[in-house]
């Protein structure tokens, strides 16, 4: 029986997201025991999750209140923190998973695994340097922060780190309260009955109002217009879903005033939410914790991904869910200006809702030009997104596929990405993308050989050392680009930065070894590009063959 400890010092949404990994581990090894360490304020998210055996908490509010108030000795703050962690350390853990990937959790991970290497993610070494459990942790730490957007979900990276197969969400893993189930069912049945005028099937559309950031929110005016559209459509009925707090309550009231208080508002805490989600047909939500819970409950959702929401990294994973976003190819979640989105409109959301129910492409014909509708799908690495509607950017799409494939290649897992996605891109586009990347690799290889040459000359004069440093800096510049070729360079940079302080000769030897590894990695990158080219050519042949067959069939005398 394996004992896992997950450290997650982030917010409620991240805790629900982590549950996907916990559920997969439990499915693949039903005997395992999983405990979690979270902040006291996030503990309530765990009430819904079935596969967690023990919960440890750090009362961050207490720690910080003691720390920041001059009245109290810092010792009380320290005692509170140390006491929480001492309890965790009394247990024996087969694996400690640093899920939140921040400084505090990395040091806690080191504290708990100081005498062994049973960890996944990032921790600190005895040299006080960042240390990763494996290459997947490097990908999370170094690549996911430099590629924007990064086309691998965090959840999937942790699946790889925990060496467990990605399993699809299953509501069996959620704890439903019988009392809330009954209340939700009877209330929603009543709404269906009241709204079903001609015995028609009523579809209840839950609308989640707020996120933690203005830029991610669906503007209030858009929500009101959407409710109007839903009310005007037979067989649809909107339900406003709010958290039990004053802010959301007054927002719901403001919306409801426009509709003479006729819209049902459901106020649910986290314990009751699964029952609510289980009784609606679709959840319309911006990037919220509720979205992650809906995924776990297998409730289809239409995510409206706006502003700082990291779409490719943590949008909805539901098989029946969709993501509506704007300006997909110009998104930069880092440059979040905290103003509300002006592109999103009620008609787009409404059309996508209809598409979610009936999958009829005609619903999407009136979407605004900047809108994109995406659908999550599973490949060998986990969840990614295909474009159902909206402009294509073939180069960017190939970039995403290459990042996915190369990431798995450099970790040694060699997961080939779905060929169908490559084949869906015109051969000529793949060819010209490959040509661009090969040109880049020529320059990169030239700089690499130059660096190796100057490394060999080190020691002769001061000038030769200076030349080496200049060459190395030039080489490391290749890590700054957003080309898939830069993956090898980004990982190289990390290894260089984390080299332990040794004597001069050892350092030089280590760098030389890393440079030769980089040379191999550039070759592997080129092999990946070559494979893409071959798959695209096969795709082209298949299309030509299909056309020929169709033509031949057409010319057959009937």
């Amino acid at each position, binding site marked *: 029986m394996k004992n896992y400890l997950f450290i997650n*010092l*982030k917010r409620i949404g991240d805790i629900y997201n982590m549950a996907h990994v916990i559920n997969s581990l439990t499915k693949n090894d039903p005997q395992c025991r999983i405990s979690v360490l979270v902040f006291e304020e996030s503990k309530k998210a765990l009430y819904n999750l079935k596969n967690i055996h023990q919960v440890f908490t*750090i009362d*961050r509010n*207490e*720690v*910080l*209140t*003691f720390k920041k*108030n*001059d*009245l*109290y*000795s*810092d*010792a*009380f703050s*320290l*005692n509170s*923190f*140390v*006491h929480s*962690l*001492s309890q965790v*350390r009394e247990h024996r853990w087969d694996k400690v998973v640093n899920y*939140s*990937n*921040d*400084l*505090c*959790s*990395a*040091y*806690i991970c*080191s*504290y*708990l695994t*100081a*005498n062994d290497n049973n960890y996944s993610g*990032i921790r*600190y*070494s*005895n*040299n*006080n340097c*960042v240390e990763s459990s494996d290459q997947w942790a490097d990908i999370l*730490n*170094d690549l*996911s*922060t430099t590629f924007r957007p990064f086309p691998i979900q965090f959840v999937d990276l942790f699946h790889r780190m925990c060496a467990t197969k990605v399993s699809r969400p299953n509501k069996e893993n959620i704890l439903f309260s019988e009392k809330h189930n009954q209340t939700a069912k009877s209330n929603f049945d009543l709404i269906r009955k009241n709204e079903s005028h001609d015995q028609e099937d009523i579809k209840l559309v839950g609308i989640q109002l707020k996120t933690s950031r203005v830029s991610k929110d669906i503007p209030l005016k858009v929500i009101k217009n959407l409710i109007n559209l839903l009310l005007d459509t037979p067989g649809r009925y909107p339900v406003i879903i709010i958290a039990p707090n004053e802010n959301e309550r007054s927002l719901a009231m403001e919306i409801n005033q426009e509709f003479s208080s006729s819209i049902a508002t459901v106020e649910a805490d986290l314990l009751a939410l699964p029952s609510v989600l289980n009784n609606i047909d679709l959840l319309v939500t911006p990037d919220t914790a509720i979205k992650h819970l809906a995924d776990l409950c297998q409730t289809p959702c239409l995510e409206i991904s706006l502003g700082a929401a990291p779409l490719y990294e943590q949008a909805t994973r539901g098989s029946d869910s969709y993501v509506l976003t704007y300006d997909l190819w110009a998104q930069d979640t880092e440059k979040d200006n905290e103003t509300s989105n002006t592109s999103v409109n009620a008609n787009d959301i409404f059309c996508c809702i209809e598409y979610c129910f009936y999958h009829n492409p005609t619903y999407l014909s009136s979407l605004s030009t900047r809108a994109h509708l995406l659908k999550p799908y599973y490949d060998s690495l986990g969840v990614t997104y295909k474009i159902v509607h909206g402009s294509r950017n073939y180069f960017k799409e190939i970039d995403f596929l290459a990042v996915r494939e190369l990431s798995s290649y450099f970790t040694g897992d060699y997961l080939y990405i779905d060929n169908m996605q490559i084949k869906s891109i015109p051969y000529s586009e793949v060819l010209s993308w490959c040509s661009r990347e090969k040109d880049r690799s020529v320059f990169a290889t030239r700089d690499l050989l130059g660096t190796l040459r100057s490394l060999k000359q080190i020691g002769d004069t001061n000038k030769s050392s200076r030349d080496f440093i200049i060459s190395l800096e030039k080489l490391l510049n290749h890590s700054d680009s957003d080309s898939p070729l830069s993956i090898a360079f980004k990982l190289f940079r990390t290894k260089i930065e984390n080299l332990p*302080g040794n004597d001069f000769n050892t350092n030089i030897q280590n760098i030389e070894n890393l440079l030769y590894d980089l040379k191999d990695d550039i070759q592997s990158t080129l092999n990946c590009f070559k494979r893409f080219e071959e798959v695209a050519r096969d795709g082209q042949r298949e299309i030509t063959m299909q056309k020929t067959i169709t033509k031949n069939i057409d010319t057959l005398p009937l």
Partner: protein
Amino acid sequence: MNTSKENYELKMSKTGHPIPVVNGIHLHSIYNPVKEAEGVIEKYSEAIEKKHEYLVLGLGLGYHLKELVRRAKTHHGDNYKVLVIEPNARCFEDYKSHLDFDDSNVSYFISKTPNDIYSTKDVVSFLVRKPAVISHAASFNLHNLYFKDVLSYKAPKKVSEQFHLITNEDIRDLLQNLDPEKSLDDNLNILSSKNLIQSPEEFLLLAYKNIERNQQRSF
């Protein structure tokens, strides 16, 4: 706090209730201290209803305390807590012997220095929950400097002055070997600049140092 030099005597009110007189100052009404206490506590009625934990500054002979507890019980049943701070030990002795009042939800800090008060874990945990503050005006004014010191107390910053409060031995030893004459923050900075981490507890201290900055995704 030393209050032995104070001139202390006990008088009887018109209603026959004992009242302490300190340095000529009557701590309760000479006419009817019970009725006076009702008026004092009435001013705090909203806070008493909203909160269920109360910090009482100044005991006197506790008439207001008795009234406070009566009201707290009506709002919160047995779910309330009172902490009383009083510098004069004589007051407390007379309160104990004259007032027929005993309640396990009330605790007392009598004649303690601010440092004693803030070194007690239970008190600190109580205060951190932000209780309603109820002051007994006559006692508060009489011992104005004392209460001012209590309210404006600043905990010592040097690690050496906090050793007795640190409960974990390993952490205490570790800090002893850093720079005990500096603050905890300074010690944590020293630790984070070290190139060699020598014990799991050092990792623990570094985790503590970064508890506020935990939103970072990458290093």
